[in-house]
Each structure stands twice: as structure tokens, then as C-alpha cells.
């Protein structure tokens, strides 16, 4: 067995950090039965990118996130596909076949996870310092065992990085901290061994809005400083709009649309993505009546034939109930930023002409109409103050290599629009 594919990579093009190829994730439900929760997912994550996985509960987002690090519960299996990860030393490994000890070194050193529900992710009977000590001792490379004092000093630095007072936090038990403090401690813990990738599962759900804001801003700043990549799982589209360079929508275990954040929010081509976006009422501006999306995702045991979304889709045709759409590239871009959608009508001019399923702000490149400014309809409170105030925070990813490529692509597109 050779779990390690030591493919040397050329220094000038290191390629994707994480390359997911045709991955299925399933759960064993009996001796011979199994339900497949994630079907045939493929994507490339390049260094410095931040990708959001969005969708309703039960669409396989968390299962996929756990599967990427092989953190699934005992009944979970990854029967198919490849999860290629480029380690810090440049070698590539397939996480799916990594053996036990190597997997342990891989986790946290290369990729770490911030779990959902900061409430339950810590062991309630251990102090926070204990969690840090455990992490360092379990995952740091062999031969680099550090004394307790040194680890605690490093932990204090990490906690300061997320704006916590180490003196207060290290000696506390989890129940003595507020939800926001726990979530920050978890992020600090995830960063402990400087991983290249962090997977965050619903990082701000169940937090208060001001706490959420400070965590979002800190995460964006840390990403600039430490240059890690992120995959975060969320059902909060606002968070995705804010923190991600690219978005993948999941439905019934499949990726059904991927693209840059602007592709997804302004030019989404899958009715499910549009429906999710339209279901969120915005806070600024006049009353915007959100559209409801009745029903729920299908049972994974009884997926409808054809497109899984067809039974709930307002634009479904007869053919949708029989033919399963493939994830087609609508606009090709490098670095995994192509806009793709799995919808039989994704290029249907009729459907996308007047921005019917998408928000009225939509501009469709194929039917470009003058777009004064994407933010114009809500301009009232989006004052574009000259020399953006410091409070705006850094545009996430602006100094990051791959992410800035995304920005460049976006900027090009913006320039391509007719001037106002």
C-alpha cells in the first residue's frame, strides 16, 4: 500500500492546496446497507482561498467537511474518490488513504477544524490550557516535544491573536467563558500548529450579532496575516457574502453550483441558489419581500430521479424529472474559480433574461444591460466614503495570491461592463 503519492511539484506553480476528486461520503446504516450523504464532489482549493459551502440542513455540508479530514463518526465511510492535499513540504498525499499515524500528523499541522457549536467542542471538565497542551502534544511532529511552559507561552500568544486575555482564559473551564470567547478560543486552538487549511463548521451560528461581527472581522484579518485557506460551512448567506472569495452550493449531497462570490450572488444560475439568496431579507433599504422556498431537501434514501431539486423547483421542466444535470462550466476561469452549475436550464436565456429567478440586481453577461453600480439600489446606506474608513476592514483576501486572482477576475468583469 502506498498512501503517499510523492509527486514533486514545480516551484513556480504549486497548484491547488486541496484537490477533491469525485468524493462520495456515506454512512453505514446496517450490516449491508449504507446511505450516501455526499455524491461525487470535486473541487480545487488554491492557497489563500476562502470557500463557503452553503445549503439547507441535511444537504451534506458538514458530512463533506468532516470527510475531508476523515473526522467522520465510526459509521462514516469515504468509499470513492481522492482528497489530494499538498503538505507544507510540497509532497501530495491522499487524505482518504492516509494511515493512522500519518493522519494524526496531518491533522492540525496541515489542516485543522473548528467545530460547530462552540458550546460542545471543548471537554467540559478540562481547563482551556489543558486543551492546548493536549493539542500540541498529540499533533506536533515527533521529536519536537516542548516543555509545558513553552506550550503555554505559545497558547497565550495564540489567544492574544484572537483578542482574548490569556490570563483570564487559560485557567478557565469552558463553562466559565461566554459563547463568543469559546468560539475565539477554538479558532486560536485550530491555528495552534499553523495549518494551511482551516475548515470551519458554522463558525458564528448561535452567537450574538456583535460577537459574530468581531469574529468575522478577526478571521478576515488573521487570514491576511497567516495566509491560511478556509473552507467554511454555513447556512448564513450573509456570512458567505462577507467572508468567502468563492461559494459552493450543496443540495441533496451534491455540489450544484460553484463560482466566485459575485457569480453566486449576482449571477446565480441554479434556481436553488437563487431561492436561498432570495429567502434572506436584507436589513438595509426598503422592505424587500423574501420568497419562501417550500418543502425540504429529499431523503437521501429516496432521491428523486433526474434533478434532485426538480420537485421543489419553480422552473422545472418535464425533462428535469428524468435527466440528472451535470455540473457544467458556464464561465471558465483558472484557480478553481470557474462558474459552474448543475441545472438543465442554466444557459436558458428565457429563464435568466430579465433576472427572473435571481434578484433584480442581476446582470447577465450574455444580456448585458447598463449596470450603473451593483450597490446602487441600496445606495442609501452604502456610502462609498472616499478613502474607505479603517472600519471597513480589509477586503478579505486582497493580498493573497490566489484570492487576489479572484479579485482581478472580478475587476476585469467590472471593467467589461458598459460604463455608467
Amino acid at each position, binding site marked *: 500500500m502506498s498512501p503517499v503519492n510523492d509527486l514533486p511539484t514545480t516551484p513556480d506553480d504549486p497548484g491547488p492546496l486541496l484537490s477533491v476528486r469525485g468524493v462520495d461520503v456515506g454512512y453505514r446504516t446496517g450490516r449491508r446497507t449504507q446511505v450516501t450523504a455526499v455524491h461525487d464532489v470535486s473541487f480545487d482549493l488554491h492557497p489563500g482561498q476562502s470557500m463557503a459551502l452553503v445549503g*439547507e440542513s441535511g444537504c451534506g455540508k458538514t458530512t463533506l467537511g468532516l470527510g475531508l479530514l476523515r473526522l467522520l463518526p465510526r459509521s462514516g465511510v469515504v468509499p470513492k474518490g481522492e482528497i489530494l492535499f499538498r503538505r507544507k513540504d510540497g509532497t501530495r498525499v491522499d487524505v482518504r488513504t492516509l494511515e493512522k499515524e500519518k493522519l494524526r500528523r496531518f491533522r492540525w499541522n496541515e489542516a485543522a477544524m473548528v467545530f460547530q457549536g462552540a458550546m460542545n467542542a471543548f471537554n467540559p471538565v478540562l481547563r482551556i490550557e489543558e486543551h492546548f497542551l493536549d493539542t500540541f502534544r498529540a499533533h506536533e511532529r515527533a521529536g519536537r516535544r516542548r516543555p509545558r511552559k513553552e506550550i503555554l507561552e505559545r497558547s497565550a500568544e495564540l489567544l492574544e491573536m484572537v483578542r482574548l486575555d490569556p490570563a483570564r482564559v487559560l485557567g478557565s473551564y469552558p463553562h466559565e467563558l461566554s459563547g463568543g470567547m469559546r468560539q475565539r478560543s477554538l479558532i486560536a486552538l485550530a491555528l495552534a500548529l499553523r495549518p494551511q487549511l482551516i475548515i470551519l463548521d458554522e463558525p458564528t451560528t448561535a452567537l450574538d450579532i*456583535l460577537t459574530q461581527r468581531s469574529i468575522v472581522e478577526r478571521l478576515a484579518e488573521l487570514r491576511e496575516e497567516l495566509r491560511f485557506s478556509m473552507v467554511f460551512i454555513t447556512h*448564513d448567506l*450573509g456570512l458567505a457574502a*462577507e467572508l468567502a472569495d468563492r461559494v459552493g452550493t450543496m443540495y441533496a449531497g451534491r455540489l450544484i453550483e460553484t463560482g466566485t*462570490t*459575485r457569480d453566486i450572488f449576482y449571477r446565480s444560475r441554479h434556481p436553488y441558489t437563487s431561492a436561498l439568496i432570495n429567502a434572506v431579507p*436584507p436589513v438595509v433599504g426598503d422592505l424587500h419581500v423574501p420568497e419562501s422556498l417550500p418543502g*425540504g431537501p429529499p431523503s437521501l434514501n429516496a432521491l428523486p430521479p433526474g434533478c434532485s431539486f426538480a420537485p421543489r423547483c419553480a422552473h422545472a421542466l418535464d425533462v428535469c424529472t428524468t435527466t440528472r444535470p451535470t455540473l457544467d462550466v458556464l464561465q471558465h476561469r483558472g484557480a478553481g474559480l470557474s462558474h459552474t452549475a448543475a441545472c438543465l436550464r442554466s444557459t436558458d436565456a428565457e429563464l435568466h433574461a430579465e433576472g427572473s429567478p435571481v434578484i433584480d440586481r442581476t446582470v447577465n453577461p450574455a444580456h448585458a444591460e447598463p449596470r450603473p453600480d451593483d450597490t446602487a439600489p441600496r445606495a442609501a446606506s452604502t456610502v462609498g466614503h472616499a478613502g474607505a474608513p479603517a472600519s471597513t476592514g480589509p477586503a478579505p483576501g486582497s493580498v493573497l495570491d490566489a484570492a487576489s486572482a479572484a479579485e482581478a477576475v472580478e475587476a476585469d468583469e467590472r471593467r467589461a461592463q458598459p460604463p455608467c
Partner: protein
Amino acid sequence: MLTLRGAQQVFRTARGDVPAVAGVDLDVRPGQVLCLVGESGCGKTTTARMAAALSSPTAGEVLFRGRDVATMDRGERAAFRRSVQYIHQDPYASLNPVRTVFSTVSAGLRRHKLVKDRHEARRVTIELLERVELTPAEDYLDKYPHQMSGGQRQRVAVARALAMEPEVIIADESTSMLDVSIRVSLLNTLGRLRDDLGVSFLFITHDLAVAKYFAWRGEIAVMYLGKVVEHGPTPQVVNDPRHPYTQALISAVCEPDPDLARTKERVRLRSSDIPDLTDLPPGCDFHPRCPLYAEGSCDTERPPLVRSHDRLLACHVVTRG
């Protein structure tokens, strides 16, 4: 309809008295929505519990149709219990797992003797389930909570509240546990009850977008550390917030619009820590975090809730304005 006058709730704990709600005046008007927003721990739920007479205020009073709830006799109290219904946050915890939907929804009907027999109870329950869009209702009657999704359970909780033909529904974070798609359809269902049946709502949420959508024609009261700091018609409060705390809350919302998210102006707070309720700062409770903090009265004198800028505001700096 339902009125709180100087309602106060102080919890006595080993660490000292915790003034969870420090005197609020609120009115729920017939057929109107009053929305309470604020962070966790600001006293929203405690206020709602007082309004529903689930706990009695340590000072102040709760009036229903002008009658003090505390001095009601048995009959009046039973009528009050019928007229004011409560929908809890967590539909996984608020439904009895060993009761069927029929049993849960009809329990109140039978208890208050609103139906003659089982046959009638079943008929009324079916009507209620249809009203909350659980159709076909016959399929749901004999289901147990574990056989349903979160959204369906919450609809059962709404049906149970409706069974009493209430005049006021108190909804405590009733949509925050649900997925975005389901949240909107439940809000629309509640909106129809408001419009068709004229039910008043005391609606509690921490999600300003939800508050704005549901209470657009009603009022919003923003609470901070047990006090109302800004209270006015929804469009004014949301689109033109005046209290620095409301401004901070509204600017902190993540908007589902990437361009807007990057250009939006954010209010910077001076501190992100919420003061401890047992050790409140002198003067205005918000002054240690307030970006508008000015030397003078902010840290010495508690700002009263006064009418200013077409709403009620508790801020020295803005009301002096």
C-alpha cells in the same frame, strides 16, 4: 391590549441582585406587531415571560385590557391564559415527545372545554393544522414530534397556540432555529394570522432582518441590559437608527450581498465586552462601549427614555443633538 408598566424583574443570586429587566414600558396594540430585539442576556425573554404572566414582575405591573394580571380572579385569569399564547424558541424541546400532534394541539381545547367530544376535537384540530399549512392535515394528526422536521414542529407549536383563539401571541425567537428557506415561509404564515385574524404579536428576535420583515408596519423596541434604549416605528428604527447601540447592531449584520458587505460602514465599538449585570457601570449602561461617548453626563447620569427624532430614545448625546 397588553401593557407593561415599569415592569422590573430582579433575580436574587449568590453574587448579588441581577436586574434582568430594569423597568420597561411596552404596549402591544390590537392587530399590531411589537418586536423586541437585542443581544442575549438583554432581558428579552424575561420581558416576554412577564408579559405572559409566566413570572411575576418584582416591581411594576402587567395589564391585559386594562386589568392588572396579578390581581385577576380565577375566571379572568383563565380567560387571560386563553387569550395570550406563547410560542417557544426550540420546537425540539417545546413539544411533548410522547404525544401525537392531535394530542398536543387538542390538549388546550379539551382542558378549556372548547370542544364537546373527541370527534369535534379532531375536526377542530384538522382546521388548525390546515391554517398553519400542514396539509394534508389527516397525515399529521397521528404523528409524533420525532417524525417531523424542525419547521413542521414549529408549525405544530403555532397550531397549538392558535387553538385557544388568542388575541396576543408571544413568539420568543420562534424562527431562529430554522433554516432560511423554512424561516420565511413560517414568517409568512404568522403574517397571515396577523392580517387575517387580527392577532397581535409580541415578537422576540435577535435577527434584525427578521424583525424588519415581520414588524414592518409595527414597532421595534431595542433592549440593552434590561432597558429599552430605542423604540419606534420599524422603518424609522431600522433605516435610520439613532441610538449608537442600534446603529452598531444594524451595521453588524452580514448582508447577503458581497459588494455591499465590503463597502458598508461599520460602527466601531470601544469594547466588545458586555458589562456584568451585577456590576453595571455608572451613568448610561452603554457608555463603556459607545462610540459617541462624550465627557460629561454619559458616565454619571442614566439617560431617560424620551421622545426625540420621532421615537423614544435613551441617549444623552443624540437627544441633546
